[in-house]
């Protein structure tokens, strides 16, 4: 997925639990970089239009990925607001469907990702923006000024991932209690739960059970 991570073993058991004989398999996940042109569908048009409307295209956009019929633009975080304004005003992506986070702890220096699905009702197109920030400096500029509807979505992403959206009018927790410690949807935050007891047996909490990965 991101940065040549690898996944060893078939059943996800570390140590001696694997008796299948397939424990030696290694699956390599390679960072594919940008998709080569032509992208197909309307994706070429969108990128061409963006390049024309935004001279700093090559500087601001790190990767253009077309996968499974979806276009993703990876944008440098300091350029996010500029690109968003051009996408909204020039390319008519009037609607931002919010933002959500993904935590990639193995992606060093880019641990926290923010994903913005955009929708153009005029042209009936979709594009996804992806922005990353390091864990040590989890700041991403807010897009509330561009799309007011991002207000709650950014609060939720802050609540769950600890991404600080600079310029948000009131960045507070939204789903968890105000004094909650930690950011629940990060990968290093345990699921929790309590063991379930039966007569004579106990089923451990979901994140402590042996499972296939």
């Amino acid at each position, binding site marked *: 997925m991101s940065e040549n991570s690898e996944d060893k073993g078939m059943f996800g058991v570390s140590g001696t639990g694997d008796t299948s004989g397939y424990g030696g398999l290694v699956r390599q996940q390679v960072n594919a970089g940008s998709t080569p042109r032509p992208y197909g569908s309307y994706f070429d048009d969108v990128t061409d239009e963006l390049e024309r409307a935004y001279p700093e295209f090559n500087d601001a956009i790190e990767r253009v990925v077309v996968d499974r019929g*979806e276009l993703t633009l990876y944008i440098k975080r300091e350029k996010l607001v500029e690109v968003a304004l051009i996408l909204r005003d020039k390319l008519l992506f009037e609607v931002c469907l919010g933002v*959500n986070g993904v935590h990639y702890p193995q992606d060093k220096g880019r641990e926290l990702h923010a994903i913005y699905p955009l929708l153009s009702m005029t042209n009936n197109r979709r594009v*996804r923006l992806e922005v990353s920030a390091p864990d040590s400096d989890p700041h991403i500029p807010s897009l509330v000024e561009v799309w007011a509807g991002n207000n709650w979505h950014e609060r939720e992403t802050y609540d769950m991932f600890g991404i600080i959206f600079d310029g948000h009018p009131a960045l507070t927790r939204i789903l968890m209690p105000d004094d909650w410690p930690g950011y629940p949807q990060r990968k290093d935050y345990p699921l929790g739960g309590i063991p379930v007891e039966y007569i004579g047996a106990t089923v451990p909490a979901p994140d402590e059970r042996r499972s*296939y990965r």
Partner: protein
Amino acid sequence: MSTFASSRETTEGRIYSVTGGDWEDVAREIGSAKEERVIVNMGPQHPSTHGVLRLMLELEGETITELRCGIGYLHTGIEKNTEYRTWTQGVTFITRMDYLSPLFNETAYCLAVEKLLNITDQVPERASAIRVLMMELNRISSHMVALGTGALELGAMAPMFFAFRERERVLDIFEMVSGLRMNMAYVRPGGVAQDLPSDALSKIRELVKDLRKNFKDNEKLLVGNTIWIKRTKDVGYLDLPGCITLGITGPVLRATGMPWDLRKTQPYCSYEDYKFDVITADTCDVYGRFLIRMQELEQSLRIIEQACDKLEKLDGAPVMVADKKIAWPAQLALGGDGLGNSLEHIRQIMGTSMESLIHHFKIVTEGFRVPAGQAYAPVESPRGELGAYLVSDGGTRPYRVHFRTPSFSNLQATSAMCEGSLIADVVAAVASIDPVMGDVDR
């Protein structure tokens, strides 16, 4: 100031917190105070907030100057929990988000998983038609709650009784098809959990006939009703630019005259094969949203009829992808102890083939692997765009599951709809958004 529980100084002046007591006393004392502003905390336990929504209202007299929503009281961590289950088990969780339209949650999720697996084209036609049929039935049952409770909250009792009567009939169909009335986890990646029972289509056709007649009767209760119009006309106003910048979709958007319906504009599950109209209104108010929901019922009935026709032609066709590495056993049967794998299937895996048994065990406990990547699949739920955003790292469990839920986005519009209006209109405005708190908080 004995009725006030406490008061505190803030940068905006002294703020009193009212925590109950006799409202007449409260009103008298407020009237004698110099300060006009009152903060009222409505909910989270309040009969007209659709669950556990908390509204904080700042009033001047009866006019709302500011309104803020407090949410999170129904946060259940569904997104996080799903990361610890297989892709198929995930359906059981996400069906519980928007508990009034579970089939939409399931379909959005399964469409996204299928996109990740690159099997969107392989999903059998019959499975897609069943999904459409079930979703449209679900749209009716969900709109029935929206219309019924919405009317009840504004003081109209009878529409609620009739709406829940029709909803009950639809839930009976769900029970017949899936075994459950809510949260049925019926749609699965690759198809649906099981085929329709043999008498399902005739029962559904009968239901469509009854509903069509009943909807006509029910309409007479509210459409054109003077009291209803006075409570809803020009109330909760939100125009097109407001909807666009707030990311509002569904009936609230269509009430501004924008004919945006994903079933038409970006069809999924072969919606392009069905004939139906996108209903709009141009009033931008609660009455317009109400009329849209009323008329969408008839459109759903039309789609259901067409889906029935389609399914009759596809009788006996598979309802799960052919790839046995992905397909969960879809030959369930109702036994003496409830719904389970069919005896035929059990006989095969237990009696005839060791490999079948191993395969069954592996796919049920370990699940299937999904190639790494991310996908977003939107569907038009009764409330607007419901999008499933999934990330896979190539394993048997999702790496990240996020739902862009219409209730969450649309609820943001409460402030824009209510500020400057009367306090009595808050209830109408919130009801017209039709938020489901399970969908908001997930």
